[in-house]
């Protein structure tokens, strides 16, 4: 009889830090100790605290072990699983209070989180359909097919206030209503799993940790709008997610939860998988649909909207993974339950991928309306190394930044738009005083320049011209007029581009110009990069009084730019210097400064 479950994270983050080997070692060790029948090892999806992986949780105690290595396994088995003595040195230190172990849900990272879309991630084994069913999986589908009319389903979504989690924030119920109102011989349900923002992995975690939730929601969508076929468009760069989706689809077909006669009700629905080749533009809905049709992934003008004329010219709804993951919960718990979370116009929760200069890198799900300060300081554990918080970037290459002065802004769709950023799909990158905001704008623009599909001129040419202006500024050749040129060009690109990619590409520039104009001016007028990032504007210098002539820096310099004799002050030849900073790191006397 099983008395204990050992959950080992099988998400992408922990897999790359060798969690599969840890699972094998655990299974071996359990057999060696005669515990194979008493302790069950479960591979799960992402727990969220990716920075501390590989992660292992032992139930019923709920002990949270972090940074586990294969060599730790014998100790965990012989101490914890045999004798019930928790291996404290491996316990996540936030869960250790006064030498006793507290529950994970009481730690700073989890306390303010509310897991709806991620509810099963890190709890169930995503490759076993029975575990999903055991946490009320497919109960919502059963309820929809036997107790609700298609219009009831749409009404429930409308009442819940659910809005699209992929970026735009369009009310999901209205989208479904448009498609349901169309008369056609075939309609389609599509899932956009082409997550492409740099640093964002919310959808990947749901696909890896709870794939059946997506299948269930898409089937519900098929019933609501009158479609019998669905497509999931997922990036080929997510191999674990693709595997688990395949397994999940196979299992659902076997159980008759996909197919011709679902749950014996006569309702028919099936799901196909399509792999994207990693073009960012294919996350744009019309480009994605074109790609599914087997053509080059390029957007087309809207209207007609996909709800009227979408995949293969038929009415189509297209929603993001996280949006779908909320739907079975809304059906089960009711629209009022969902609407009770969040703010007036943004209901429910939102998943964010926390990254950048933050202690707890990982995945968090918070009720809408949580302030940025709570996310950064409490859940994220603050900025590491005692540095100061400067800004947070949301919405990836389409979004903007939130400066420190607005850190108390409650996060929801409308607040973020009002301050010049956007919700986006949920990337949240934290920046500290060492980040140069002009450089950040450049980083995102380089990304959009690469990813612009080239179909329309404002985006194809405009973004390149924007990047040239930014390069001019970070090279120290900028003029004050360039700021006006930047703004003018940004507005042209925004208003004239064909799709969302181009329409939002200037946002990182506009929002840094709005909140960090002084940094742009410092680059242009003073020819200085205040954060010391832009190489052309930085120079290294040796303070003669402090230099002992130890020669350490001269020996480390990769380009031989430092000269001087032993016990005499050295000098840097700035014409040779490549500004790598190795000399500064090497000097034991703090004699080298960056200007």
């Amino acid at each position, binding site marked *: 009889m099983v008395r204990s479950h050992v959950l080992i994270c099988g998400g992408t983050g922990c897999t790359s830090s060798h969690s599969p080997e840890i699972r094998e070692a655990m299974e071996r060790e359990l057999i060696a100790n005669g515990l194979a029948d008493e302790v069950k090892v479960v591979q799960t999806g992402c727990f969220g605290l990716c920075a501390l992986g590989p992660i292992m949780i032992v139930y019923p105690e*709920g002990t949270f072990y972090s940074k586990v290595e294969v060599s730790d396994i014998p100790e965990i088995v012989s101490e914890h699983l045999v*004798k019930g003595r928790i291996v404290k040195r491996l316990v996540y230190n936030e869960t250790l209070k006064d030498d006793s172990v507290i529950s994970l849900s009481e730690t700073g990272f989890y306390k303010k989180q509310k897991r709806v879309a991620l509810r099963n991630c890190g709890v169930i084994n995503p490759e076993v359909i029975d575990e999903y069913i055991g946490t009320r999986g497919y109960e919502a589908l059963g309820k929809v097919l036997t107790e609700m009319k298609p219009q009831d389903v749409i009404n429930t979504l409308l009442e819940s206030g659910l809005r699209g989690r992929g970026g735009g924030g369009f009310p999901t119920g209205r989208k479904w209503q448009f498609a349901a109102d169309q008369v056609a011989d075939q309609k389609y349900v599509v899932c956009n799993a082409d997550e492409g923002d740099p640093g964002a992995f919310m959808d990947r975690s749901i696909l890896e940790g709870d794939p059946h939730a997506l299948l269930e929601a898409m089937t519900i969508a098929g019933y609501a709008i009158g479609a019998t076929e669905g497509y999931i468009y997922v990036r080929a760069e997510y191999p674990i997610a693709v595997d688990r989706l395949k397994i999940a689809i196979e299992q659902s077909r076997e159980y008759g939860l996909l197919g011709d006669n679902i749950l014996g009700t006569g309702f028919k629905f099936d799901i196909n998988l399509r792999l994207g080749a990693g073009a960012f533009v294919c996350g744009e809905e019309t480009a994605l649909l074109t790609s599914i049709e087997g053509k080059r992934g390029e957007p087309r003008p809207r209207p007609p909207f996909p709800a009227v004329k979408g995949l293969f010219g038929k009415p189509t709804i297209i929603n993001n993974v996280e949006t779908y993951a909320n739907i079975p919960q809304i059906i089960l718990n009711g629209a009022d339950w969902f609407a009770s979370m969040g703010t007036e116009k943004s209901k429910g929760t939102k998943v964010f991928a926390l990254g950048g200069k933050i202690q707890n890198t990982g995945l968090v799900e918070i009720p809408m309306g949580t302030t940025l300060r709570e996310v950064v300081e409490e859940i994220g554990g603050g900025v590491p190394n005692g540095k100061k918080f400067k800004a947070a970037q949301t919405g990836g290459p389409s979004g903007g930044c939130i400066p420190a002065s607005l850190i108390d802004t409650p996060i929801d769709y409308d607040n973020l738009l009002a301050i010049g950023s956007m919700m986006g799909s949920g990337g949240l990158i934290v920046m500290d005083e060492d980040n140069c905001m002009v450089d950040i704008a450049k980083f995102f623009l380089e990304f959009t320049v690469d990813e612009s599909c080239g179909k329309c001129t404002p985006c194809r040419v405009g973004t390149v011209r924007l990047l040239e202006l930014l390069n001019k500024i970070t090279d120290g050749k900028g003029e004050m007029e360039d700021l006006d040129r930047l703004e003018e060009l940004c507005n042209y690109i925004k208003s004239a581009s064909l799709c969302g990619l181009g329409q939002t590409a200037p946002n990182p520039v506009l929002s840094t110009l709005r909140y960090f104009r002084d940094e742009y001016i410092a680059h242009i007028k003073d020819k200085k990069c205040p954060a010391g990032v832009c190489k052309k504007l930085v120079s290294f210098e040796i303070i003669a009084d402090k230099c002992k002539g130890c020669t350490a820096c001269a020996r480390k310099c990769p380009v031989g730019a430092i000269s001087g004799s032993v016990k005499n002050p050295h000098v840097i030849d700035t014409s040779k210097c490549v500004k790598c900073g190795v000399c500064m790191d090497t000097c034991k006397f703090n004699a080298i400064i960056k200007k």
Partner: protein
Amino acid sequence: MKTLADLAAIRDKMKGKVAIREGSSDTRIVVGMATCGIAAGARPVLNAFVEAVNDAAMTDSVMVTQTGCIGICRLEPVVEVYVGNEPKVTYVKMTPEKAKEVFAKHIKGGAVVTEYTVGSAE
């Protein structure tokens, strides 16, 4: 093909298994599993409790867990039972048979089996 009834059956079967991961039980049965406890036969006692809880389909409300040495090694196997906010009850010199009895009378019935508690052993 599964019907709604099949689905409900799978759910009921799996619920107990997944509930162990929720850790929100109001009743905790803690078995001392240090060297002294194991030597005195704590493993079969632990397993007896696990089985009893499963048989009674009470896995979502009762947690069976281990702990280290409680300190009264001569009275091992020692089992501590926490029900809600009531003071803990410590059972000593436990056997699988006594475990089944404690489960039936105390956990399910709410009546402490006084004769096995540490108080009467002293």
